[in-house]
């Protein structure tokens, strides 16, 4: 796991190095003296060879010294990232819960009623969700609910000036801004939860022990809920571990469509404006979450399924 982490750090570092020197553009400006540029580059460590720069940066990353943004008024990276994560969490958690709570039961029900109208309808729905380009779906919802009906705001996170309103009004206002992005974010994952739950349940109810449970005269409810469902949920629970990184790293596209200042936007904006300290923290945070998410999925798998043992 540690070599994996180092490797990821090295690759992200390499790609960011391609973006180039953030002080290079300053050379064009006649009012900035070359000495000053050299001083700045020295202060930020850009005159060091790349491997020294990498280890210097990597060390400060591990020790929690994340530094300040080159641009964005020299704000501490921790502050910028914390604010973006707060926004992203709100949207991603809501959509994960919505997708899971709606998708999994429908998938299970579809499996128990295979080849019925219900099953076909939601199979189509799942494909519909998985084939929909998210940003276009966002446009459509905006056109219908924002422009035509005027029920919901087009984008942003709150009405300007609402900060002084009473708490309840503030919550209600921000909830309104969440509806459309959450629907867009959950559509894709809802489809995949349905498919996973369906195929997992289908596999389980064909097993011998389910037939045995039926044969010994257990009521159908007990067979489904006690015997089949518990085993069908095993692969689904491990998938929850895999969706962990998405909760923090945010969705660049959806955040752009709805102008949400979350992690996805922060990462891309920082990368494009050469804001090294911010971009590197974002990328490394996201990839370490991916690695940890995979680890959690593996561990969960062993916890819920006693047949699996890691030596």
């Amino acid at each position, binding site marked *: 796991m540690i*070599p*994996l982490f180092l*490797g*990821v750090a090295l*690759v*992200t570092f390499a*790609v*960011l190095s*391609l*973006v*180039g020197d953030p002080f290079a553009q300053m050379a064009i400006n006649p009012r900035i003296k070359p000495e000053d540029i050299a001083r700045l580059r020295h202060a930020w460590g850009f005159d060091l060879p790349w491997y020294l720069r990498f280890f210097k940066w990597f060390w400060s990353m591990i020790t929690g010294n994340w530094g300040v943004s080159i641009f964005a008024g020299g704000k501490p990276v921790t502050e910028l990232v914390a604010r973006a994560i707060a926004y992203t969490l709100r949207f991603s958690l809501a959509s994960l819960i919505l997708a899971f709570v709606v998708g999994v039961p429908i998938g299970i029900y579809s499996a128990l009623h295979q080849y019925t109208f219900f099953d076909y309808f939601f199979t189509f729905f799942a*494909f*519909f969700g*998985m*084939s*929909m*380009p*998210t*940003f*276009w779906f966002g*446009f*459509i919802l*905006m*056109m219908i609910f924002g*422009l035509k009906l005027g029920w919901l705001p087009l984008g942003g996170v709150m009405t300007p000036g609402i900060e002084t309103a009473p708490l309840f009004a503030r919550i209600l206002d921000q909830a309104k801004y969440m509806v459309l992005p959450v629907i867009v974010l959950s559509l894709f994952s809802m489809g995949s939860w349905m498919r996973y739950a369906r195929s997992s349940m289908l596999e389980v109810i064909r097993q011998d022990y389910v037939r045995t449970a039926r044969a010994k005269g257990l009521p159908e409810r007990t067979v489904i809920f006690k015997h089949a469902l518990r085993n069908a949920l095993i692969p689904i629970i491990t998938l929850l571990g895999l969706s962990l*990184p998405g909760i923090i*790293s945010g*969705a*660049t*596209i959806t955040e*752009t*469509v709805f102008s949400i200042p979350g992690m*996805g936007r922060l*990462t*891309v904006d920082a*990368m*494009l404006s050469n804001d090294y300290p911010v971009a590197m923290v*974002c*990328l490394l945070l*996201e*990839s370490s979450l*991916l*690695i940890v998410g*995979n680890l959690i999925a593996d561990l969960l798998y062993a916890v819920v399924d006693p047949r699996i043992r890691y030596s």
Partner: protein
Amino acid sequence: MAVEATKIEEVLTGRVETYWYLVGKRLRKHRLAMLSLVVLILIILACIVGPYISPYKVSELGSTTEVLQPPSWKHPLGTDELGRDVLTRLFYGGRISLLVGFSSVVSALLVGIIVGAYAGYFGGFLDTILMRFTDIMFSIPVMPLLIVLSSVIPGAGVWKIVLVIAIFGWMTDARIVRGMFLSLRENEYVEAARAIGVSNNRIIWRHILPNSFAPIIVSATLGVGGNIIYEAALSYLGFGVMPPTPSWGNMLQNAQYAMAIAPWLVWSPGLAMFITVLAFNYLGDGLRDAMDPKLYR
């Protein structure tokens, strides 16, 4: 019973039922997959033929009276903010989007097959190195790096987008191919080939690879749809195919700002993309069902 019936048919017609013949037979029974295939062929034909039939040129600017016109007989899908015919641009955009979708999948497959085949066949140290690298690539957040790479690599060409999407698209294929090779290399025919002195490369490409085509084809079919969306997302953000070359994605780039006055600009490119991706997903699903020997016989 069923097996006997096909055996009898084989004897009567003198035609041996190969695996791929059976796959085709099963696929033809999958109604949604066949419908998707027909839809895809129609879309591809329209994108090839459409530009020749259309009376407008792809970047032909209309007069000021023709800017942002709603759909009419003259312009079936309306005109955009520069007075260009949307239907004509949709045909050209489809060419680009499909081209990006297909060629990025093919290039990613090439890398994935090579990495997966050598890792799975030789195993050991080579396998460890290649798969660690695959893990690393898998653990990198894709979207930010896609955006940065396409803004850093010079040029505005379509091939740049293909390259960028392929760089982050080969890992799944590599894992699938490796898995197939790990199990197939233990087969007797591989041992037999080795015994008569066939070279490793020949065993990999001529003996094992053709037997692992089924999951590769499924993954490729699903991949085309996914990559069309990737290209569209990149183009929407302004880092994909550069205007004036149209693609379904960059046609939507300006549509967001015009949506209040010109909703037709939003509908047509998105719908074309959605139907295409949906068809690829259904076709891929049908192929998976048709190729999976566990589900039949």
